[in-house]
């Protein structure tokens, strides 16, 4: 993997900056990878737009920000409207099922994973703040060949408050159990 | 008493005008320092800008002549970096109560072990006689040609309210008392504040029909009273007369800021977080 770009986007308070940090921390554990992680947020701690970006790969990372994400996560309509078009051709899009994608290209509609991430967090964890861990669970399945799930788990343990580790790992496993539809092309090839 | 060992004799005579009271405060300071028994080599004197700022240049200690109003902030850095040092700030009413007023109250709030001596001549002398926060209402200044309408601080009340654990006021007409006050302030563990009235015949006096230094000293005496006497005064008298002496003293060395920070260091070392 020469350079892989990931963007997690949504609203402030959804824990995406933390999820970005955890992904970056997991990628760091892969010996061959260089890693850069950036984030963008407004002055609000809750609400507002939030975005975390991770770039990793075996090459030296010249430009540290995402240019065309290989993997894009959107948890809100606003973030999808802003970033949906940036996706690299044949890239992967993971969208909360609350997002209306009827206005985008049909080929993209076919390949996007629409998953009830926030609803699942509320139904199974009784709290939507676990949506970020469900996202990580989903990503860990998609990127299993690049970053082992155990690296991500270790990173969750390292980065969340001690008293919340069990709940976070449970949500992570819920994410891993979500069945993803088959895609018609191999991921990551351009 | 050899007071000359505390002075840089080769830097004398000083630049202060004839009749100025600043030399009297300096005199009281060196005598008080001698009586305090503190180590001259472990003492730093720090000043800002203005006539008071020049005091540190005449004193045979490690000395720092800083920017306008900031002496207390520099002193906080020196004291915090090496709490073994005795750190003394010499400032004026413009330097310490106007541009540096924020540093004064925050150092008092922290209760860091500094001694601040504020030379209050009620005017910006060095720049030619502009009014300061301590210029009396109604007095003239070059920037108050129709009489000053700004109200004053009561600096001892201000620093006490901000958290100073030692506040005192002296005046150059009574150098013995001033010496005694400064000695107590030097030995106090915590933030100690000494305000001293001092006469400025050349700038303040000339603008206010009191250009004779002796008259100015007499006026100081009329407008002040020893704290013990002052407490007997009526409320009306208290309004117009300033009390002199040690006005507030709380003895609790464990409340001092560098002591409290040292406890944090010990706590982090104990936890073995190293």
């Amino acid at each position: 993997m020469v350079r892989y770009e990931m963007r997690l986007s949504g609203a402030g308070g959804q824990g995406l900056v933390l999820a970005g940090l955890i992904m970056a921390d997991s990628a760091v554990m892969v010996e061959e990878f260089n890693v850069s992680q950036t984030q963008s947020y407004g002055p609000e701690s809750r609400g507002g737009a939030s975005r975390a970006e991770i770039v990793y790969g075996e090459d030296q990372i010249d430009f540290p920000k995402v240019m065309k994400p290989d993997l894009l996560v959107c948890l809100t309509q606003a973030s999808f409207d802003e970033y949906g078009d940036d996706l690299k051709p044949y890239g992967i899009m993971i969208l909360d099922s609350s997002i209306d994608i009827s206005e985008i290209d049909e080929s993209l509609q076919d390949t996007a994973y629409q998953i009830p991430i926030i609803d699942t967090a509320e139904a199974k964890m009784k709290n939507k703040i676990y949506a970020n861990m469900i996202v990580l669970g989903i990503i860990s399945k998609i990127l299993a060949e690049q970053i082992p799930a155990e690296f991500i788990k270790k990173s969750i343990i390292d980065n969340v408050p001690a008293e919340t580790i069990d709940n976070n790992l449970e949500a992570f496993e819920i994410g891993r159990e979500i069945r993803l539809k088959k895609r018609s092309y191999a991921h990551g090839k351009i | 008493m050899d007071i000359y060992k505390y002075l840089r004799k080769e830097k004398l005579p000083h630049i202060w005008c004839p009749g100025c009271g600043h030399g009297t405060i300096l005199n009281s300071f060196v005598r008080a320092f001698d009586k305090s028994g503190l180590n001259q080599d472990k003492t730093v004197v720090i000043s800002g800008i203005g006539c008071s700022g020049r005091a540190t240049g005449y004193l045979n200690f490690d000395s720092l002549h800083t920017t306008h109003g900031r002496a207390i902030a520099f002193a906080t850095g020196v004291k915090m970096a090496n709490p073994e040092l005795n750190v003394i700030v010499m400032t004026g009413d413009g330097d310490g109560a106007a541009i540096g007023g924020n540093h004064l109250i925050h150092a008092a709030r922290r209760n860091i072990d500094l001694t601040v001596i504020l030379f209050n001549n009620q005017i910006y002398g060095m720049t030619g006689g502009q009014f300061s926060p301590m210029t009396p209402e109604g007095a003239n200044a070059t920037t108050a040609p129709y009489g000053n309408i700004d109200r004053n601080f009561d600096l001892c009340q201000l620093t006490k309210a901000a958290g100073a654990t030692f506040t005192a006021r002296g005046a150059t007409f009574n150098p013995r008392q001033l010496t005694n006050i400064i000695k107590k302030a030097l030995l106090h563990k915590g933030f100690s504040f000494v305000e001293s009235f001092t006469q400025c015949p050349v700038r303040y006096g000339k603008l206010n029909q009191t250009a004779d230094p002796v008259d100015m000293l007499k006026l100081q005496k009329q407008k002040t009273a020893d704290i013990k006497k002052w407490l007997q005064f009526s409320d009306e008298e208290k309004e117009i007369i300033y009390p002199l002496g040690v006005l507030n003293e709380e003895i609790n060395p464990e409340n001092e800021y560098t002591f409290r920070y040292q406890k944090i260091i010990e706590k982090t070392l104990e936890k073995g977080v190293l």
Partner: protein
Amino acid sequence: MTKTKVYKPQKRGILVQGDQAVVEGALAAGVEFFAGYPITPASEIAEGFARELPKVGGKFLQMEDEIAGMAAIVGASLAGKKAITATSGPGFSLKQENLGFAIMIEAPLVVVNVQRVGPSTGLPTSPSQGDVMQSRWGRNGDQPIIVLAPASVQECFDLSITAVNFSEKYRQPVILLLDEVIGHLREKIIIKKAEELDIWERKRPALNERRNNFNPYQETDDLIPPMPDYGSGFRYHASGLFHDQTGFPSGKNKTAKNLMDRLTKKITANLSEILLYEKDVRKEDQAAVLSFGSAVRTAISAVHTARKAGLKVGYFKLKTIWPFPEEEVAKLAEEVDTIIVPELNQGQLIGEVKKAAGCKADVIGINDYSGLLLKPEEIRSVLEEVL
């Protein structure tokens, strides 16, 4: 694709944020004192020092304002400690007077400025390189200054050490100029061990000079007077007024000129050590991209992809932006026809590049001052036009 790895905890490569790497570097360099005031995007530096300094017996002070933070580190430096503060543009403006004082009395210390978009409150969470000239000329009067600009988290660590080292060796305040991208960026870096590092200390006078008419601002061969710690018995005077060798004010014009000349020369005589840069310009290259700070990342990315497409272009990356490497840039201007200068401002350092290049090369600026990091294609498109 990379094969699945067996988990091995990496002892050396760790994920660190730029602001935190500055803290780690400074601690490695022996910094024992921080005083400052919270400001975005530099607050993480204050938080890092608040957490780490007491663990090594050091001191952290949150002061009442930016001015006091600057003053306090000058005081700590005089008391013998390696001292640092951190701020962003508006706070940096407030610090200027006392920074000028530190330059005048030759107090070793480091000021970190994590730049954000200005003027005024500007865009607090967006990157900028708008303080290039404020770093150089923000104070009244002429004066020397050293400004280092890291372009990666690893360089935040490495140049933080260099900044402390330079400040100690030259008795000179050093500015470490980050921007929001570099300060908040997290990257995998290697924290070097103490034994791998070269740490410098200020020159202190021998204690037996104490009573021997010690001159704290004596004219030594290396132009850098030895500096005693307050409290070590030298009883010396330091003043922001022009002073002679004794440290006491002198109103003589000749004394003022002597001091200014020495302050300037102690830096210009050591440019070979102070000027840090990386250059990758091949014989056949017709253009070079000259950049510093976060713009380096865009520049090198653009150069690498342009070279793959066969374009003849190299890069010149400044780590020391002040003093400006005039001779090196003049030489670069002889080697290439065009120098491209991307900056996150309306064009500040480009003026120096033009001065140094004279008429030997075309100098073209690419500027973004909207709070965004320049994108590689913006440089690429200029390269395609000129080549």
